[in-house]
């Protein structure tokens, strides 16, 4: 399109006070926490919960809730960006970094370049390992110091805040290493394979 039409009478009044470098293009800041999920919220009990790191069919490590809680804990304060346009600033999460998971299972370096996150309810999402190492990715179990509610992904969800938030998969139960990149749930349904909010990679082809 050659010319962007001006929306007569439309003014920005809400977002002007927010620093531009905090909000990616096309996003707006919200103070509440919207819920976006493709189906019913799974209600997984902590006693039935476990989490695994897998390479192919073989587990590299597996933890029940108590074991996972005893892993080294990291707290991070970070902005999050949902592909449905809202961004939320200064959210605080606690959990286990991907680096600490690798350390715990005795891996000096990741065994493959991609992972697929597998979740209760069948949801999947693919993430390059490079976007998880170096403190960039976590499995989180606390939001603002409290257990994460089921609607927001509890007991545990992925956190990769520098990508659109659908990559921070709710109800995660395993991370499976892959030699080749494969597309997860939304990535197979028209959403971008990588999802960098600063490049506005919302949909396939962006």
């Amino acid at each position, binding site marked *: 399109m050659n010319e962007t039409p001006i929306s007569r009478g439309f003014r920005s009044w809400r977002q002007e006070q927010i620093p531009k470098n905090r909000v990616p293009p096309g996003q707006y800041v919200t103070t509440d926490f919207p*819920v976006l999920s493709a189906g019913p919220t799974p209600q997984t009990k902590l006693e039935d919960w476990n989490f695994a790191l897998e390479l192919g069919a073989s587990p590299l490590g597996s933890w029940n809730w108590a074991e996972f809680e005893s892993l080294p804990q990291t707290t991070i304060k970070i902005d999050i960006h949902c592909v449905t346009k809202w961004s939320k600033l200064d959210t605080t999460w606690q959990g286990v970094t991907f680096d600490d998971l690798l350390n715990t299972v005795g891996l000096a370096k990741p065994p493959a370049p991609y992972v697929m996150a597998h979740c209760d309810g069948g949801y999947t999402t693919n993430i390059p390992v490079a976007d998880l190492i170096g403190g960039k990715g976590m499995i989180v179990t606390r939001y603002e110091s409290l257990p994460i509610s089921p609607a927001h992904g509890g007991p545990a969800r992925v956190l990769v805040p520098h990508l659109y938030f659908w990559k921070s998969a709710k109800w995660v139960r395993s991370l499976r290493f892959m030699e080749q990149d494969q597309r997860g749930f939304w990535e197979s349904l*028209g959403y971008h394979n990588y999802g960098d909010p600063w490049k506005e990679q919302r949909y396939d*082809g962006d």
Partner: protein
Amino acid sequence: MTVTETATQPTPRLVWQLAQVREIVVETYRVKSLMLHVTNWQGHLPGQHVDLRLTAESGYQAQRSYSIASPPEDDLLTLTVERVEGGEVSPYLVDDLRAGDQFELRGPIGCYFVWTVATHGPLWLLAGGSGIAPLMAMLRHRARRKVRAPALLLYSSRSLGDVIYREELDMMARVDPDLRVVDILTRKQPETWMGHRGRIDKVLLAEAGFPPKQNPKIFVCGPTPFVEDISRFLVELGHDPLAIKTERFGPSGG
């Protein structure tokens, strides 16, 4: 729900297109439908949405997503917008926009919350407030194609004055014996109201709904607490979680 395939070559980008408002329909005191002409619209599936972009004279831009309420069979694309108080975009769309105005949109988006007449099994729709919009695209599509697969809409509104598409839904249900429309009013009911009062509960879902053994395709759209409650009730009643597709909105947005 697992959809996994090998990463493929990039597809063409969804480009921003010019949409012109041809007609505005006042649906309720805070909801309007915008009927849009989009020159090179490639068509859509019932349930999909678009991204809409407004540009201020200062160059500031705001984007929001809106469900498409019109069926693929219609020439004009209809978006039904509820004014969110304190919102940045919806008050502009509802109060300031006039026929002839233009803005940008791109889409269609979303290939999961979708139903067409090719889908087998009974269709069960559950709407809360303006969550009716994408479900209306499905019902209109079904009506245009004169499909007689059984369909049921449970539609929860605050009051009679909040019911969107009321006359059209009444008419659809009158001429189509295979479509049932059940209105639920949660906050205020007329004295003569014979329908359901209060929130949709498990009893109503069990009594009015399709039983799990009929394998209905279920679509739930509305505010987050509405969708959370109903989808949980449906799972507890024995419906397959993978047969329940949901879209949640609010309390932010706008």
